[in-house]
């Protein structure tokens, strides 16, 4: 079973990456003609610059400790949005499913391979957005090796949690609403919902800044309050941040372990019962 899952994961990931045209297939090197490659390079430079400025400003007011709070929330929301957008395509509408269906593969194997593909894609986003700012933060405030170990664990585990939750809701949505028979309907619904959320969040955020008369310290405190609220609601972020700060390490590891076991087991159960049957129905409408 594990061998088949790995084989399929490799196949789906190769398909996804090569369709982005990041690698020059003939020379087997990074394709510098690809728009994606340049987007990543520009994003990396911008992230380095902005993170450096924020960390310095926070150090200036003695509030550097809130950087992980705010940045983890940002990354968490970014990964959630990305996974909401790509999850249905990966699980239900991707073209590679049809070429795999005639093979003697168990529904659970296909489901877990698709899950791994989704996690892999989120890792790439995380590599671009998370690693450099968090290392810069570690260097700026001179934290010990424990911080980096906790950071690596967070980098590995946070996308898995996001994928569990989003995949779970994705399966429920597609099973509940029979209207979602093709990717266009789903993309339209999800995009409208996400744009509405982003629009109202930005409106709230800008209103707060205007109210605080563009005072940097107050804005940061407001942002931190929002981050603390979001982090509390998302169960796993706070334990990771506390571990990063070296607080309640053992109890937080146990808490995280329990959360992951329960949610992952529930997802595999729901996936094995509901995923495959609905997948074949969705395929009938393509």
């Amino acid at each position, binding site marked *: 079973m594990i061998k088949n899952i790995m084989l399929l994961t490799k196949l789906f990931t190769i398909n996804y990456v090569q369709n982005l045209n990041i690698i020059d297939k003939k020379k087997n090197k990074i394709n510098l003609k690809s728009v994606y490659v340049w987007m990543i390079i520009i994003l990396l430079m911008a992230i380095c610059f902005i993170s450096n400025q924020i960390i310095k400003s926070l150090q200036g007011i003695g509030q550097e400790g809130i950087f992980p709070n705010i940045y983890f929330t940002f990354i968490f929301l970014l990964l959630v949005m990305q996974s909401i957008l790509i999850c249905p395509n990966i699980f239900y509408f991707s073209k590679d499913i049809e070429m795999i269906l005639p*093979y003697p593969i168990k529904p659970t194997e296909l489901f877990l391979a698709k899950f791994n593909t989704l996690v892999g894609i989120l890792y790439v986003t995380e590599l671009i957005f998370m690693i450099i700012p968090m290392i810069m933060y570690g260097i700026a405030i001179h934290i010990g090796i424990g911080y980096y170990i906790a950071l690596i664990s967070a980098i590995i585990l946070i996308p898995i949690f996001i994928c569990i939750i989003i995949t779970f809701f994705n399966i429920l949505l597609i099973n509940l609403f029979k209207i979602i028979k093709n990717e266009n309907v789903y993309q339209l619904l999800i995009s409208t919902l996400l744009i509405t959320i982003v629009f109202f969040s930005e409106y709230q955020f800008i209103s707060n800044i205007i109210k605080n008369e563009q005072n940097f310290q107050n804005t940061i405190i407001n942002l931190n309050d929002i981050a603390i609220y979001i982090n509390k609601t998302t169960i796993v972020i706070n334990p990771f941040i506390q571990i990063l700060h070296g607080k309640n390490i053992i109890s937080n590891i146990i808490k995280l372990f329990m959360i992951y076991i329960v949610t992952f087991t529930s997802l595999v159960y729901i996936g094995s019962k509901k995923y495959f049957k609905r997948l*074949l129905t969705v395929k009938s409408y393509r």
Partner: protein
Amino acid sequence: MIKIENVSKSYGNKKVVDNLNLTINDGEIFGFLGPNGAGKTTIIKMITGILSIDKGDIKIDNNSIIKNPVKAKENIGLIPDSPDIFLNLKGIEYLNFVADIYKVGKVERINRIKELSERFNMIKFLEEKIENYSHGMRQKIIIIGVLLHTPKNWILDEPITGLDPKAIYDLKQTMKDYANRGNTVFFSTHILEVAEKLCDKVGIINKGNLIYVGTIEELKQKLKDDESLEELFMELIEND
């Protein structure tokens, strides 16, 4: 053996297959004929588990594709209507993937890949990506992949399209040899000549209904003896 029992399928409100019953026995080459949109590819997709079945069941060597899909699929090899699949893999990577999925042993896979690649003139191209192959080469690599694990039931959806004359000849020979070894060969085609020369039995489908099953000779006797298969086919479709 492939057994289709009371199978129906609809896309939305449109019924594309209506209560179809059909048995294809071991050792038989069965040609599935019908105009575009008759339901041929839908039936092939239901046999191979790509599409769900609304009503009825399909059994592959007595394993239900609904109740026991993994076991049923172990005995199937499918050549799809479009060979544009696994394009991001090299030919050899695709063949190893198939061999891994069907658990073909290392020695056996090396021998089979060599033998089949030589037969279909593909040995020089195995290290190239499938996306760089021509249509016919893509078709050939899929045929090699399917025959790698010697499935009991070989299903081909429009297999002749895009192949050069030599490859068509090789494929027809391979199909004959395959059926002679007691396996089932089920294929859909538009080319009536191929069906006439190759098939032990044909099935003609129109608007989701099977309008004829039997040998070409029986079909000729049923209609007018001196007509070509093309004329018989047109007569059946127009009368339906």
